[in-house]
């Protein structure tokens, strides 16, 4: 899957499942910052989505990998089977 397509999929998920406004969400926007405000409950949802959509487990993965759509996509890219 092209990297761009993966990032767009992640973005759609943040919008539809975690209630994030699309117009403020860029690929490098900090997800756990003040504006988007994701928390530990949201990270459970991200892990579940990434696992079921891309087949990559992010359980127990260091926090910096969840910083933005860019970093999540990079983690998926480097851990795809």
């Amino acid at each position: 899957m092209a990297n761009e397509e993966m990032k767009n999929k992640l973005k759609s998920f943040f919008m539809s499942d975690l209630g994030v406004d699309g117009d403020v969400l860029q690929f490098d926007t900090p997800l756990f910052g003040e504006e988007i405000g994701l928390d530990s409950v949201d990270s459970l949802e991200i892990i579940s989505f990434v696992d079921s959509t891309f087949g990559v487990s992010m359980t127990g993965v260091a926090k910096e990998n969840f910083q933005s759509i860019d970093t999540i996509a990079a983690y998926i890219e480097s851990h795809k089977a």
Partner: protein
Amino acid sequence: MTPDERRCVVTGLGVICAVGNNVEETWKSALESVSGIHKTTSLDTKNCYADLAAEVKCDTLDQIDAPEEKDRVSKLCIKAANEALADAGLSNFGDDQRVSVVIGSCVGGVLSIEQYHQHGRDAAEIAKMPIASIASQVAETCGAGGIVTNVANACAAGTISIAVACDLIRAGKADVVIAGGADSFASVPYSGFLSLHALDENGCSPFNRCNGITLGEGAGIVIVESYEHAQKRSAKTYCEVLGSGVTSDANHITAPREDGVCLMEAINRAVKNSGIDKSDIGYVNAHGTGTGKNDNAEITAFKNFFGEDNANVSVSSTKVMTGHCLGAAGAIEAVFSIKALTTDTVLPTFPYTEEQSAALKEKVGALDFVQNKARHKELKCVLSNNVAFGGTNAAIVFSKVPGEVSAQSAKAKKIAVTGLGIVSPLGNSKAAYLDAVKAGKKPESASVHSTIALEDYKELGIKMAFYRKLDNLGQLQTVSGMRALQDSAFQVTDDNAKDIGIIVGTSEGGLGATYDFEELIAEAGNAGGSAFKFPHTVYNAAGGYLSICSGIKGYGVTITTGPLSGLDSIGYSMNVIHDGQEKAMMATGTDENLPIITEFAQKLGVAAGDVVAPFAENEGFVVGDGSVSIMLEEEDYAKARGAKVYCYALGFGHGRKNVKFGKLAGSDEALDKAINDALADAGLSAADIDAVCGFANGCKRIDDIEKGALKRVFGDKLATMPLFEVKERVGEGRAGSAALAAAEAAMLLNGELASDNAYFIAGDGSVTSKAADAAGLKKILIISFAAGGSYSAVVFGKNP
């Protein structure tokens, strides 16, 4: 000492849980350190990392009247209630208006939601779904004809129910209250806690491994009786129920505050309201769920609260026996606490190895965490506390001595209405509602709903990081609540955050969200639940979100009885203020119209095919929704901050005549009683009332009850007395409409609403309508109803 008329005693106990089907069996198991946690046999555990539960094994649950009309949760509750009533030497009350039922629950009839979704969408399941059915069916079973309500504060609901029971008795509204909680084990909570990774795959280990909870199920019932009533009938008494404390974290929808300060405040209030010393508490039955977040917050709260004054108080969690029974937890733990108190026994948490004991000691210091075996300890008072989703904290004291309970200490205070927040299908502000009235707007179709827009959040300064988490019900409640604060110019600060509380009234609460969650896991399996969506299934999430958004940290309770919950929130808030518990209260009515809610109304044959007006003698009504929040304040407190006063809340009344839950027919005269009760509470007579804000919605069966009662109470006066009906504009919005009727009364009394369309009922029953002026209206009666035969009435007046 607490004066006799304020003393509440326990005269009966009933319980059913994984370690026993009655008090005797359960207590024996507790003394023998028996755990009821086993591999679940009732749910699909495919791909699920945890498969343990503490399930009830009982084959006599169906030995009640019409079991097919009741969800498992009601059956569990009725079984425990019957045991408690027999224990108290009480039987059918024959609709005695002095006997109430207050039941807590978290997931209510969730098994019936599952049944409906997976097995043919049978209309017969619908009336079994809402939490409101539980107390109503208990009342119907034993003929309790007083206030019948449910507390829906998730895992703290059982404790709050007993607290509310005592508040009712001390306010003189009841002599006997059947109080407690019930919940059943089901896929929705199982899948939800799995998705939060909050289940311990090895079984919960509170204050020890702290890897998560294990779900249980069951019911606990405590018969709370006024001391004088119990004396009169020479009843056996277990103990006194002293003070309680309820607070809100205003922090997170699922996680408790790490510093435990709001839990500590709840405990502090309970002890202070009891008029006892901290050192009088000999044992604490902790919430002790087994999650690190909960257990650590509790340890912090206990250490800080008891400090040097009672450093070695005994503490334990009994959830290792019963599992976490959610809304039943506090009630079952109340039964444990009362048995512990009256037999001078402290119960254990288990199993602890020597190493684990040493590690615990390190963590808890001097606190005496009772491990592995129950033991004898002389006890004077016992504290039980619970914590819930939505940030609710609750604590209550059971005692051998009457204490010095503070109640009704502010009874003489006048209560002012100082702010309104209106969200309805007509728009999301008071201004939008006033404009719609002026323009004579009617519902656009037979199913209408409110829609929150980004502009609403912008106007209220609510950030995306917050509002993105809200479900529909939470959106409606947050916006109406924040608008009410804004309208009353009430700034919540660190100094006053504990002076103000919230009571949310709702008919269906999180029922729609629960249905959505059920739909999700029916497709994805129990392992496929959503951690984001699960919190919305609890009815008190909406109130929790409002508390988080506003910073309100005082009393926080969600009640669910049916449409009248939007008036009961006002009545109970008046009582909280009169009890001196808070200076200000936000009373709300909130319900949503999701597509599934309209489907339920259609299946039940109460949804109109087209737009209908009140008194249209139709078979159905327009399905609507809305959230209305009303600020109530002690008059002096409001005046001291220069608040604008709309009007005054003068009286609250209630009436009930038991009919089957889901029905109203045959209960008509209970509405007369509610009205007369409210008038008496306000020190008024029917002649003093200038107008009525009613509940007519176009459905003949409902409207005729209103017409009949008003005719009996007001006689010929009804032909010239304006009857305002908000549902002509917003449809049947259940609790949202009941609170809107109160808001309409407030706006008529202060003149913001100069006139509105009004209905007049002639002697022959014929109805006409015309615009009526607000000028000259000084006292307005507001009424509402609930399936099962309950009615509420509130009186607002221009002057105190």
